[in-house]
């Protein structure tokens, strides 16, 4: 078995025992990237020498007897929205082309300290706004299962890189589903931790009350190891939770769900859902029951209005956050010919530097926040947010976790929804409620849809700081399905 097929946990063990070096593991992945990147286009920035220098430094630290974590020497790809002090950071926007941040994000820094080696920065929808990664200003990333389809979004470079065995691990951010949806449509594991459980410091802000960094991996245990490595209170993020990190690794190893109470969200399913997605989802629910869980139906009627509430709240926050791109302190500046005012230069720069989806959301948010509309739109959306949180609370009095399909459909063809914003937004129908309520939610593979042979994801939602429950149930599903399939779902993916 080659190094690229191993799990992150296995690679960490081999490196710790000295059976293989961090440099050898990094080289194997860089070689795989060189081979498949022309087809996948998951990465925006790759620098072989910087990566190998990092790997050499980790090998030296290990040889010197330094105690690093279980992922020391394991390579990782970072979504290009986390700042890195040795590689450019662009958020896939022209407005930040070539920007080299003078500091590391907390997630980046903690993973460096734990000995992870950065393979590069992955593609995304510009400023994480989108569900297909087609909104990148630089390139279109392709789904390793079918190169004519989207890899999900906004963290589509990170999902594609892991599904294509270019990286064993990657980071993403989830504002409305941007980790779980790409994980579902590429047949891997993606987790949105509890809001505030992972630091936003050094994460380029889109919607600050929703943005949550989280892990991608090819299996549940690897995702847990990665989450544990970057989690924990961060004084640099004022919304970081000062509480112990849930024991996610222990939960991923435990995988026992006998006696757990599992709620099936009644409102997710039926019209608008692909039959093949519902078939795999229903089988997964039966599987949970056969593993000893008590399954009940739970009604959360306001979840249907989560999508419209989100598309008022997220654009409102975005219109405020993206005001920082003013052409003055960093990034692009257009039209500064000595005669134009700062304001004119700002407007020309922002028109040239932002793509269509970003412009749409800035204007939508500006509209929702303007006097006369504020109460009807932003104010009402904030009330709906409260109602949704209360429905989650009531549900979690009755059950330990809630389940639903992660997405209504499998990966759609590139271009299909590119100029139809409302159709694109539907991809996040099932994932958005957990962003509004801030609770933990994971997507794990649960099979292939009959119509198109593409991966389907099962979403498991747990209460705030109940991240361990997501991993426990996810691991149980993974264990049972892999024994049925005779290995991971990804072995069904076509060779690249």
């Amino acid at each position, binding site marked *: 078995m080659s190094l690229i097929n191993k799990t992150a946990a296995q690679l960490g063990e081999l490196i710790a025992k000295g059976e293989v070096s961090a440099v050898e593991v990094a080289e194997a992945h860089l070689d795989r990237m060189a081979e498949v990147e022309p087809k996948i286009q998951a990465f925006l920035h790759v620098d072989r020498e910087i990566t190998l220098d990092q790997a050499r430094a980790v090998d030296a630290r290990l040889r010197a007897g330094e105690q690093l974590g279980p992922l020391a020497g394991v390579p990782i790809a970072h979504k290009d929205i986390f700042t890195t002090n040795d590689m450019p950071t662009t958020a896939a926007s022209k407005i930040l082309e070539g*920007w*080299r941040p*003078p*500091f590391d994000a907390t997630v980046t820094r903690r993973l460096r300290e734990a000995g992870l080696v950065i393979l590069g920065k992955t593609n995304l929808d510009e400023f994480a706004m989108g569900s297909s990664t087609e909104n990148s200003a630089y390139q279109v990333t392709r789904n390793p299962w079918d190169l004519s389809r989207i890899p999900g979004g906004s963290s589509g470079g990170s999902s594609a890189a892991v599904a294509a065995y270019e990286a064993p691990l990657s980071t993403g951010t989830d504002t409305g589903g941007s980790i779980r949806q790409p994980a579902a449509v590429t047949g891997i594991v993606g987790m949105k931790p509890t*809001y*505030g459980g992972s630091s936003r410091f050094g994460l380029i802000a889109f919607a600050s*009350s929703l943005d949550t960094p989280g892990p991608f991996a090819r299996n549940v245990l690897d995702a847990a190891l990665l989450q544990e490595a970057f989690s924990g209170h961060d*004084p640099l993020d*004022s*919304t970081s*939770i000062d509480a112990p990190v849930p024991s996610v690794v222990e939960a991923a190893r435990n995988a026992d769900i006998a006696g757990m109470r599992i709620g099936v969200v009644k409102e997710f399913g039926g019209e608008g859902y692909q039959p093949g997605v519902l078939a795999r989802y229903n089988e997964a629910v039966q599987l949970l029951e056969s593993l000893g869980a008590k399954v009940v139906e739970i009604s959360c009627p*306001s979840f249907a*209005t989560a999508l*419209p*509430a989100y*598309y*008022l709240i997220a654009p409102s926050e975005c*219109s405020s956050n993206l005001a920082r791109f*003013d*052409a*003055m302190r*960093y*990034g692009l*500046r257009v039209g*500064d010919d000595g005669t*134009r*005012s*700062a*304001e*004119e230069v700002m*407007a*020309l720069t*922002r*028109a040239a530097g*932002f793509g269509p989806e970003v*412009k*749409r959301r*800035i204007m*939508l948010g*500006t*509209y929702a926040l*303007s006097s006369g509309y504020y109460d*009807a*739109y932003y*104010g*009402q*959306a*904030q*009330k*709906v*947010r*409260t*109602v949704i*949180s209360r429905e989650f609370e009531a549900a979690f009095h009755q059950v330990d976790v809630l389940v639903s399909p992660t997405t209504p459909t499998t990966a759609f063809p590139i271009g299909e929804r590119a100029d139809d*914003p*409302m159709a694109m937004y539907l991809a996040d129908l099932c994932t958005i409620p957990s*962003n509004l*309520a*801030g609770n933990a939610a994971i997507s794990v593979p649960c099979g292939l849809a009959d119509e198109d042979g593409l991966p389907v994801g099962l979403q498991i939602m747990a209460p*705030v700081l109940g991240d361990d429950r997501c991993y426990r149930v996810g691991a149980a599903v993974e264990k049972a399905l892999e024994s049925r399939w005779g290995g991971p779902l990804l072995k069904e993916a076509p060779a690249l």
Partner: protein
Amino acid sequence: MSAITRDEVAHLARLSRLALNDDELDHYATQLDAIIESVAKVAEVAAEDVPPSSHALPLTNVFRADEVRPSLTPEQALSGAPAVEDDRFRVPRILGEEA
């Protein structure tokens, strides 16, 4: 009736500091109209007596001790600037001609 007019979109673009041309204004007016019509569904939730949530979790102000600590050097802070002069950000004029 449309939820938003082209003139309103032009006003939003000005507020958003986005220099858009006529074709773009037409395009965004059509799309924003469809989006606003759809998001207006939030009104269907009966929530008169419900307090709004700006955040998912309860927030409290976070303070740190007012102490000098290491930060970016001037060179680092200016490293991404479009234009620099004498250790400062150089910006286009911000006042009118007569000022």
